[in-house]
C-alpha cells in the first residue's frame, strides 16, 4: 500500500511538474549554451516525455538520485537533502517529542481533575493552541522571549537554546490536539467497567491510573500520530524561515518561490516517503501496543 502511494505521488508530481510549459532551463539566462546543452543531455530534457519519465523514476527509486537543482547549478538535490536534513529532523523530533509528552501529561491532568481549575486551564490552553497559527505564535514568542526578555536567541541554529522557540511554535498545535484527545479518551475509559473492577479489587488510585487508565486511553490517541507528524513537517516550512534555521523546509519554500523543479519534485517525494514511513512505523507501534490489532 505504502509503496503504491509513494509511486503514485512521484508520478503525479512528475506529471504536474511537466504540465508547466517550458523547459526549466530556459529561464536560466546566465547559463552558457554549452552547459545548457550538457545539462539537457544529462537529464534528457530533449527526449520524449515517456523516456524522461522512466529515467526519472529509475534514477529515483534505484539510485536514490533526485537530480540536480536547476537554480543552484551543479548542486545535486541529494546533497541538499543530506546537508539540510539534520536541522529539520532535530527540530521536528524535538517539537514532536515535546508536544506528545506535554500533551499527554496535560490531557491526563485535565481528565483527572475534571471540571476543576487544572482542567479549565488545560482546556483553555488547548483550545488556544489549536486556534493560533504556528507562524503567529512564532512571532509572538520571538517578541516576548527574544526581543523583550532577551533570554532566548532570536534565531539561528547552534545549541539547545536555539531550538526552544521554534520547537514550541511548531509543537504547540500538536500538543493542544494531543491534550484534548487524551482528555476525552481518559474520560471515556473511566466509564468502562474494568475501571470499576480495578477499584473493587482494591488497587490504589495511582495504580489504577497508571496501569489501566492511561494505557488504554493512549491507544485511540496513537492513531492520530501519523497526521500530526505531517502537521509538524509542513509547519516546519514557515517556522524555519522565521527563525532562520538552515533546514529543508526553508529550501522547499525557496524552491517553490523560484520554481526550481527538481528540488520541488525531489523534496516532495522525499517528504512523502518520509511521512509514509512514519505512518508505517506508527501502525507497527500500534500493533505492538494494542493486542487487539495484532490479530487483524
Amino acid at each position: 500500500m505504502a509503496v503504491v502511494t509513494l509511486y503514485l505521488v512521484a508520478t503525479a508530481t512528475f506529471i504536474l511538474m511537466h504540465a508547466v510549459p517550458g523547459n526549466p532551463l530556459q529561464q536560466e539566462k546566465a547559463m552558457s549554451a554549452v552547459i545548457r546543452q550538457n545539462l539537457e543531455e544529462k537529464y534528457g530534457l530533449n527526449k520524449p516525455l515517456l523516456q524522461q519519465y522512466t529515467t526519472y523514476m529509475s534514477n529515483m527509486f534505484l539510485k536514490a538520485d533526485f537530480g540536480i537543482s536547476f537554480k543552484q547549478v551543479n548542486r545535486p538535490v541529494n546533497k541538499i537533502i543530506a546537508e539540510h536534513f539534520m536541522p529539520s529532523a532535530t527540530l521536528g523530533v524535538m517539537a514532536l517529542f515535546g508536544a506528545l509528552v506535554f500533551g499527554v501529561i496535560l490531557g491526563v491532568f485535565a481528565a483527572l481533575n475534571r471540571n476543576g481549575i487544572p482542567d479549565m486551564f488545560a482546556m483553555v490552553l488547548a483550545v488556544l493552541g489549536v486556534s493560533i497559527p504556528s507562524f503567529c505564535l512564532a512571532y509572538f514568542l520571538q517578541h516576548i522571549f527574544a526581543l523583550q526578555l532577551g533570554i532566548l536567541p532570536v534565531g539561528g541554529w547552534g545549541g539547545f537554546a536555539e531550538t526552544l522557540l521554534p520547537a514550541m511554535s511548531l509543537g504547540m498545535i500538536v500538543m493542544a490536539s494531543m491534550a484534548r484527545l487524551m482528555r476525552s479518551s481518559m474520560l471515556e475509559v473511566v466509564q468502562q467497567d474494568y475501571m470499576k473492577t480495578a477499584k473493587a479489587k482494591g488497587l490504589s488510585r495511582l495504580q489504577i491510573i497508571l496501569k489501566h487508565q492511561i494505557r488504554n486511553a493512549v491507544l485511540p490517541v496513537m492513531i492520530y500520530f501519523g497526521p500530526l507528524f505531517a502537521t509538524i513537517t509542513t509547519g516546519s516550512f514557515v517556522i524555519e524561515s522565521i527563525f532562520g534555521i538552515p533546514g529543508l523546509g526553508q529550501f522547499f519554500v525557496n524552491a517553490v518561490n523560484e520554481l526550481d523543479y527538481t528540488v520541488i519534485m525531489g523534496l516532495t517525494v522525499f517528504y512523502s516517503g518520509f511521512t509514509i514511513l512514519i505512518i508505517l512505523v506508527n501502525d507497527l507501534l500500534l500493533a505492538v501496543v494494542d493486542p487487539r490489532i495484532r490479530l487483524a
Partner: protein
Amino acid sequence: MNKTAAQNDGNFNPSPDLFVPVSIDDQSLDGILGRPSISYWQDAWMRLRRNKTAIVSALYIVVLSLCAIIIPMSLDYSHDQQEIWNKHSPPSFGEDVYVDSGDYVFQPKTTEQVIDESAEAAIDVPASPKNVRVVGEPRTTGIEIEWDQVSGIDGYRVYRSISTDTLGIPLDDVPADRINYFDTSSLSKGVTYYYVITAFNMFGDSMDTEILTVKPRFAIQPDVARAIDPNAQPGSIIKTKAHYLGTDYLGRDMLARIMIGARVSLFIGFAAPILYILFGIIYGSVSGYFGGLVDDLMMRITDIVATVPELLVIIILQVVLGNGVTTLIIALVAVSWARSARQIRGEVLRLREMEFVHAAKVLGTGFFTIVARHLLPNVMGTVLVLLTLAVPSAIFTEAFLSFIGLGIEPPMTSWGIVTKEGAAVFVTYPLELLIPSLMICLTMLAFNLLGDGLRDALDPKLRGAK
C-alpha cells in the same frame, strides 16, 4: 424512623380528598406530566443555546461576516489604495495635515570654490562642513538643508538616519560647489530624522560630523490633498481620512484590508469545506450504502488520496495551476475530500445496519425516500460538526500558503498576505502583524468553540443533561 421531606414535622397525614383523578386526555397537564415533546434537533438547539461560549462564537462569526460585507462598502477608499505619504500610520480618526503650496522649487545654491593656491594638497579626509542647518520649515514634503562650504574637496555626501546610533543611509552625493540639498525621499510623519553631511575627498568621508536633528511637519502636496478633500487649499490644514486601524507599509488602510481579507478568507473557509464535504457525502454514502466490492474499491482510492501529505500536494498544485482563489479552492478540495468521505461512509455503514432502515425496506419505502428520511437526517449531525471544524483548517491553510508566497495574488488581499506584510515590519511596527494575527486566531477560535459546542449538543449520550 427516617424522616423524609414530607414528614418533616411528623404530622403530615394526606387525606383522600387531596387527590383528584386525572384523565389522560387532559391537555393542561402536558408540560407537567412529562417533558414537552421535542424533536432531536430542537433538543440539540436548546443545549447549544445554553452553551455560552458557542453562542458567543456564533455571534462573532455572524458579526464578522456582516462587517466584512458592509465595512468595505462604507469606507471611502479601497483596500489597495495607497497613501505612500501616510505609511505605517497608527490608528487614528484622521490627522491634521498641512497642505503645501506646491509651488516650491528648489534652488540649488552654489559657491565659488575658493582655491587657495598656497594651501597644501590634502593628505587626509577633509574637515566636516560646519553650521549645518535647516532652511525654512521642514516638512514631510521636503526638507532643505544648508551648510558652510568646505574647500578643496571632491564633494559632499548627505546621510540620513532615524536614530542617533547609526550614520544612516547615504541619500546622495552633492557636487563640491553646492552648499544645499533638498530631501524629498519618502519622509514619514512623526519620525525624527538625523542628518549628517560629510565632505569627502579621495581619502574618504570627514569625521567628527555634526548631527542635524529635524522633525518635519506633516504635509502633503496639493494634488494629494485634493484627493482627500476636493476643496483643499494650499496653505490650509485639512484632516486626513480616518484610518481606524492604521495603515501598512504602502499606506493602505488596515481596516479595509482586514475586512476584504475577511471576505476572501471566510469565502475560502466556507466554500472549500462545503464543496469537499458535499463530495464526501455523495462518495461516502454511495460507498457505505452499497457495500461489498464497490465499497472496497472506493475506499482503496480514498486511502491512497488520504495518505498523501496534504499540504505538499496543495503547494504543488498551486505551483502548477498558479495562484488565486479558484486554484486554492480546487487544491483544498482535491486534497481534503478523502478524509470526510471516509468518516461519512463510516456513519452510513453504521446507519445501514440500523433496523429502521430495514424496516423501511420491508414497508416498501423507495430508495430515495430512505436516503432522504432515514439516512441523511442522521448523518447531518456528523456533517455539521465536520463542517464547523473544517473551516478553521481551511482558513489556516490559506494563511499559511499566502505566508509562504503561494495562495492569493495581489492586488487581492487575504489575512495571510496581510500577516506576511506585517511580519516583515514586526519589530518596528508590531501592530501591523498583531491585527491580522489576532483576526485569524479569533476566527479560528470561534469556529473551534462553535464546533465543540455543536458536537456536545448533538451527542445523544448527553441528551437531557443539564
